[in-house]
């Protein structure tokens, strides 16, 4: 696990149709120490996905610095695992091969990477689905595979882009419980993008509220772990924090 730090990050791009420069991210600085879970929330269009795409290396940043364990980011790489809102599983690979993809890229032999994949699948209770194709799984199952695939590559930082936004409410809570449990077991460094405030608070050590390409506020979440919905749903501290963050987002 490594730390992630964003220093005066900025993004402007040229809108050729309008013929003008557009600022998506003005000036964002953020420190995520190794092993911390940070959620970024904000209204749509606030630039939260842009930040994640820059950290992942999918799009270049136009100002400032992105450092993973002190090393500047240049393009996508296996040191940063990404979980996508649309799952982005390879439809032509079985669940096992999807999870084993990262190790395969590192040159791990077939038998060994299958063993790694099976271990991680077991972590998410997916052992029975190893030989299925993504298309044959429900949305919730597919995103479990998406999370496990990123984890199996043992990244320094895990980046999650609204990963549970396209599954039903019931499944979403189960997935949040599971992600919380897995995080407590493995303690990865996580940046979690969402527009769902209770989700952000439930999962994170710290919630960052973003507005118009700038950090509006940071809220610490000292709620004790393990966290499960059964307990937190009636927890006053959780409710207060959620309302506090919600008020910030509304004001944004």
């Amino acid at each position, binding site marked *: 696990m490594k730390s992630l730090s964003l220093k005066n990050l900025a993004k402007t791009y040229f809108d050729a149709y309008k013929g003008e420069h557009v600022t998506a991210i003005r000036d964002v600085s953020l420190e995520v120490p190794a092993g911390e879970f940070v959620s970024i929330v904000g209204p749509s269009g606030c630039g939260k996905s842009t930040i994640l795409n820059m950290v992942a290396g999918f799009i270049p940043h136009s100002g400032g610095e992105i450092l993973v364990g002190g090393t500047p980011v240049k393009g996508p*790489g296996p040191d940063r695992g990404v979980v996508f809102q649309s799952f982005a599983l390879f439809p032509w690979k079985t669940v096992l091969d999807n999870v084993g993809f990262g190790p395969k890229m590192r040159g791990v032999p077939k038998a060994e990477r299958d063993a790694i994949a099976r271990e991680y699948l077991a972590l998410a209770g997916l052992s029975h689905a190893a030989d299925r194709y993504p298309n044959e799984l429900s949305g919730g199952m597919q995103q479990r595979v998406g999370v496990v695939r990123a984890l199996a590559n043992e990244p320094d930082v895990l980046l999650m882009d609204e990963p549970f936004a396209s599954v039903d409410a019931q499944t979403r809570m189960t997935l949040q419980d599971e992600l919380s449990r897995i995080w407590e077991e493995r303690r990865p460094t996580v940046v979690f993008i969402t527009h769902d405030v209770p989700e952000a608070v439930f999962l994170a050590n710290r919630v960052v509220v973003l507005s118009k390409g700038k950090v509006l506020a940071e809220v610490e979440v000292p709620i004790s772990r393990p966290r499960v919905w059964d307990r937190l749903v009636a927890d006053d501290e959780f409710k207060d924090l959620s309302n506090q963050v919600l008020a910030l987002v509304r004001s944004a």
Partner: protein
Amino acid sequence: MERTSRISAALIFIAPLAVLVALWAVVVPVFGVRPQIFPSVPAVGRAGLDSILDGSLLRHVAASVSRVAIGTVLAVLVAVPLGILMGVSRGVSAFLTPLMRFFSVLAGIAWIPIATLWFGYGFGAIVFVIFNAVFFVVAYNTLLGVSTIPMTLRHAAASLGAGRQAMLTDVLLPGALPNIVTGIRTGLGFAWRGLIAAEMIATDVGLGYMLFVARDFYQTEVIVLGMIVIGTLWLLIDRLILVPLERATIERWGLVSA
């Protein structure tokens, strides 16, 4: 279990065709259709037997099939890598799409006159026609296939550590495969028709030639025999090779071809 159901499915498929043949066998003698207009079933059977025994049918079929096979294999081998390379960059693929579309629209038969002029009558011209019927359609579909792969899949692969080569073999090629297969199926359809047309015009062996020469002598039984052979061959190629291939990729992966 599986086997018996497949056999019964085949029987159900063949039964209506058998009825059609029976109808034909009755209609021709009852209405006294002249053999110059339409042959009787026994006449076609005899023509079939004769041409099998003297080896001419085999020679024509072998000529046609080998031309199609050579032209198609060559075309696919060149078109798929080219299509993928063209599709890698969004800008390049957007620029080239109208071009590929124009040529795939022109593919096949329209090239017969110029092909015969460049290569003379015979093997070269015919293989050229088949090659370009398949080539442009497959290249265009590959390009289309690569450009329909969601950007997030490429991002996912990159963030899992895929390099340039793994991106090609593990993402772009399989992602474009359904389109490639559809392209091959369409292209082969054009090529098959182009073959028959080209053989009528530009050669002295092959199924198209067999039909066209028979016409000179009003040998309708040879023409009908040739049509049945052409239909059966295409049905076999399409149903036993192309359709299962398309199913295996598109249905199992849940991909919808564009």
